[in-house]
């Protein structure tokens, strides 16, 4: 298996879906069954590869980049095909391949208009490559490519299969279809951010000596303070713009509610579960270790923005009438916790960030699945019209309640660790950071958990509980079908497992995080 450990394993994980895209294009549109199986096959293959890596991973030295390879890619600009995973990227990569498979399974009999499974599955697989690739890339340019690779498919997914209801934007005369507005908004926002991110990468490249895009080498350079002073300040600002848009951090978040709401179910799931993580991962993998000094300067600002996001997102949720939009806004709050954790620059914080990302991935992914299926049944997402779902579809409602509990950070379920440890980290951030800011942030964040509980419980009350309104009594609303359960049960299990035995994630991250903090901040 040495070939597998020397880059092939990772490359397969990343590029098998891309091969799948190629295969799909060759299959005529009419062969839907074949198309589905091929897509699922490649998704599973990629997932299997990542699981195999998981088992071969050397947890004892999780700070080292494993299974890596470093081949020349674009000599003209000194950029290499350098890949590898450490304890931080491993959980994220597995998560991405995992969610991809579930997305394909779920799609099996849920096709948003206009049908066209061929194109839809091709886009999912393309996304899969981009997502997994971002987590394994160890070269800034390679990272950039994968980071951007997710844009096009998601743009088409939202724009073509998205929500067709008309909205009027404040200050505009004409009404526009949600999907059109949301897709281009998502696209422009992200591209705007990443354009500056690219400039930041170049600035890093030219400041490093010898010039390099190699992340590992740059970690060393960063720990030796190569990028200090105002120069680094601007670089950090540029990277911040790129990552913060993706996370998204307040106030750059407004693309998110629109995109999540407009996207087809699977699109929302992938957006929430993986795409948002790319930004936060960028902070952990690039900003912090390469620009530690600036990270310390910026940390309080990030913490403040993060808690604003927590409270702001939760309050916004309280006013939502659209179930899907509520879940979308909840992501703002939850990613706020992740960013708060990151901004503490402590081991506890970064561990919290990673487990928080994984937890948010499985939990919010599941929430979007269910919201999608319910909209599929009821043909509305207005919570005012729903209600009594518990009576109409007990299983689905049960899973929804369970997931909501997980989402509000119930101990014993996945959501708790990220939230609690974010607060824990905020209580004593990296030495030298303003205690006042962070402890205030901790208290505000803790209050945020109350609001979170509030809107989730109110959502449950509106959607699940009470007597079903008579408009549904006649309809045949079948409960979760077998494809839905096939997609959801694994997530439920994951939520429970991570909640009861968080070492599933910590076991991978602790070493890597400790090393990162030590080299970057000497703490």
């Amino acid at each position, binding site marked *: 298996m040495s070939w597998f450990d020397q880059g092939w394993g990772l490359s397969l994980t990343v590029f098998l879906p891309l091969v799948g895209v190629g295969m799909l294009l060759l299959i005529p549109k009419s062969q839907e069954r074949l198309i589905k199986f091929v897509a699922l096959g490649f998704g599973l293959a990629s997932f299997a590869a990542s699981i195999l890596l998981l088992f071969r991973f050397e947890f004892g030295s999780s700070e080292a980049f494993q299974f890596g390879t470093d081949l020349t890619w674009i000599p003209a600009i000194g950029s290499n095909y350098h890949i590898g995973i450490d304890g931080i990227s491993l959980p994220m990569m597995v998560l991405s391949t995992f969610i991809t498979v579930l997305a394909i399974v779920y799609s099996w009999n849920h096709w948003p208009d206009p049908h066209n499974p061929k194109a839809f599955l091709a886009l999912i697989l393309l996304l899969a490559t981009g997502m997994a690739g971002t987590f394994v890339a160890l070269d800034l340019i390679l990272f950039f490519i994968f980071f951007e690779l997710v844009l096009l498919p998601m743009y088409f997914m939202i724009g073509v299969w998205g929500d067709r209801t008309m909205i009027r934007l404040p200050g505009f005369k004409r009404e526009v279809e949600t999907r059109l507005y949301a897709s281009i908004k998502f696209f422009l926002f992200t591209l705007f951010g990443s354009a500056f991110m690219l400039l930041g990468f170049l600035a890093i490249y030219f400041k490093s000596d010898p010039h390099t895009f190699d992340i590992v080498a740059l970690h060393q350079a960063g720990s030796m303070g190569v990028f200090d002073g105002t120069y680094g300040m601007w670089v950090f600002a540029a990277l911040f713009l790129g990552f913060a848009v993706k996370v998204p951090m307040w106030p750059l978040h*407004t693309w998110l509610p629109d995109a999540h709401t407009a996207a087809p179910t699977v699109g929302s799931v992938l957006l929430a579960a993986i795409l948002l993580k790319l930004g936060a991962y960028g902070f952990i993998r690039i900003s912090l270790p390469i620009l530690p000094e600036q990270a310390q300067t910026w940390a309080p600002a990030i913490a403040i923005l993060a808690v604003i996001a927590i409270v702001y997102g939760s*309050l916004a949720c309280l*006013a939502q009438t659209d179930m899907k939009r509520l879940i979308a806004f909840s992501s703002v709050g939850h990613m706020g916790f992740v960013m708060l954790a990151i901004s503490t620059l402590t081991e506890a914080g970064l561990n919290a960030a990673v487990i928080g990302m994984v937890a948010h991935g499985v939990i919010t992914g599941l929430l979007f699945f269910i919201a999608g299926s319910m909209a599929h049944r009821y043909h509305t997402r207005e919570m005012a019209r729903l209600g009594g779902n518990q009576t109409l579809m007990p299983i689905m409602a049960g899973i929804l309640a369970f997931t909501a509990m997980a989402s509000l950070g*119930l*101990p014993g379920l996945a959501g*708790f660790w990220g939230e609690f440890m974010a607060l824990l980290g905020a209580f004593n951030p990296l030495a030298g950071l303003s205690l006042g800011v962070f402890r205030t942030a901790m208290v505000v964040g803790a209050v945020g958990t*109350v609001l979170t509980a509030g809107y989730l*419980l109110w959502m449950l009350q509106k959607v699940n509980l009470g007597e079903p309104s008579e408009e549904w009594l006649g309809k045949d609303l079948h409960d979760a079908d077998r494809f839905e359960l096939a997609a959801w049960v694994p997530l439920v299990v994951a939520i429970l497992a991570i909640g009861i035995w968080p*070492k599933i994630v910590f076991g991978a991250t602790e070493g890597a995080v400790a090393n990162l903090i030590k080299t970057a901040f000497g703490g």
Partner: protein
Amino acid sequence: MTTLLGLLALAEGGEHAVEVVTDPGGFVGVLADFAWLIPVVPLLATFAIVLVGKRLPLKGWELAEGAIGFVAIYAVALLIANWVTPMAVEHHIEISRIGSLPGLGDLVLEWGWVVDGLSIMMFTVVGVVGFFVFTYAKGYMEGDVRFTFFFASFSLFAGGMLVLVIAPNLIQLIVGWELVGVASYLLIGHWWEDHDNNAAAIKAFITNKIADVGLFVGVIILGITVGSFRITDVLDAVARHDSALAAVAFWAGLGLFIGAMGKSAQMPFHVWLPDAMAGPTPVSSLMHAATMVTAGVYLVGRMFPLYQTGGMADDVKTIIILAGGATLLLTGLIALVQDDIKKVLAYSTLSQLGYMTAAMGAGAYTAGLFHLFTHAFFKGLLFLAAGSVIHGVHSNNMSDMGGLRRFMPSTYKTFLIGSVALAGIFPLSGFWSKDEILASLSNDASHGGGAAATLVLVLAILGAFITAFYMTRAVYLTFFGEYRGDGHPHESPRVMTYPLWGLAALAAVAGFVNIPGVYTPFTEWLASRIHVMGDHHAGGLNWALALIGTAVALAGIAAGTRLFRRDAATQAERDRFRIPVLYPLLEHKYYFDDLYLNGIVGPIKGPIARFVVWTNQVVIDGVVNAFGAAARFASGYVYGWVDQRGIDLAINVVAAGAGEAGGVVRKAQTGKVQQYAGALFAGAVLLVVGFLIFS
């Protein structure tokens, strides 16, 4: 001696640490080592019920009953063992390392279990009372829409509660703490077709969640400053007067206590408990009277060395004692005007929790927990009996009852026993525990407790009167006079009455395990902790206070009898003049709910949330869209004026450059090609001129 979980932990690369102070050894040792089964069995039962419950002959009840029975037996076994030889054993299994603290080493997450007097006492309460309630519930919930789901949630609660009390570290304690919260949410909202119940459930959850902010902060402070979440490590730090901890101990202690106030429904967090009566009566009995609501008191007891005099956060004691005092009196008063029998008991519970809290505040570790112990039995009993009544008359309101002693004798007798015990009449359990609290309060008053202790002592005595009074009222309105309801009330089935008698027996005798100065095994149990509990416990029986307490209670009964024995029919109106000044205040429960709803929750859910969304849609997105609009406008402008027409301007420039007269320029502005040409040339000229000027 490694256990299964231990093996798993080792397999996971964690460590399995055992901390034994007094090793019971032998079979008892084995019991202690496998005590982790106590919470795990009910939790497994929960999953089993959810998965297969519906298919079982008794629809899952047997699993729940089996689990709680197991717990009861295990607990009693431990109790006896501990009676023989006091033990204190802790097991810790490392989950994972989550970070390191400079100077303090690694910060780890652990699961674990502590088997000492305190936890054993709690196992016993949960197990034994739980066993009776589960049995009773089979009859009470017979034919309910969600019979199976009910027992799933119920054993989830049992499991959560036991996770809480068995927790050797604060994180695990939080886990149990939140689990019982969820179970409570599920069970209060058990009949969720009616949105009032859901509202009550949410109210309970949110109120607790708010208090939990305090708990979280407190736990985090302790964990970070001590460098470990183990309760024993924290208490060690207290014992060795760790300076770092001393600096923050007050806030940590306060935080923990705020959490406790939430769970134990101390003012001003008490609002959720009366509403929680929306749940089925067995739930009210086990969770909202016997066990869950006492978790706060338990927490203070578990962390007692932190609060005790000479401990680091003993300033918090004043707050604790005052909170307890306020709660025990004010909520007791509200009980006077309730018509719903469960509400009466609910407010009585609040008031009794006030006693416990006050005792803790008085530094009376044993007294507080002793009252917790006895209260569990008689209040559990009272609720079950009330449930039996409700089951019989299909109404919660005492105005629909009356004269039931003829129809349901055992219910009547057991309810009477419970009431007398609660009123604190010799020799029933309530007498002993309440008397001890009074004694400890006076003791504290004379040992530096100061004015607060004295005040609360007075309140407590007053409370004794009120307690007796409203219980008498309840008894008369329910069981005496003429039956005012409709239909034919009937005694409940055996499956319900037997538990009543069982609890009645315990309620009667439970007090004898702690007769001050005579026979006090209970004190020894609670003393068998890894850390010595300083506890200025009144030495002998305080005759004076005992007499006063009894006298006051009797006075209450007398007053109740005099007011309520004859005309129970129209009591609602008469309450008005019987409690002249207070009545409106009591009727509106001191306006707490209105304050919270209209003052806090309303605004946040309404205007504030809407404002936030407005900022999102209009302000922030406004900026975003404005950029788009600006780009479009700019493009229109550039295309229309610069690219297409504005070239005229260029021509003028050329003309100026070539020294031409304006007239010619007019003509020059006609043909487009020539405009292009002009622009070309103008560009050239501008560049040259500009360059010559600027370089």
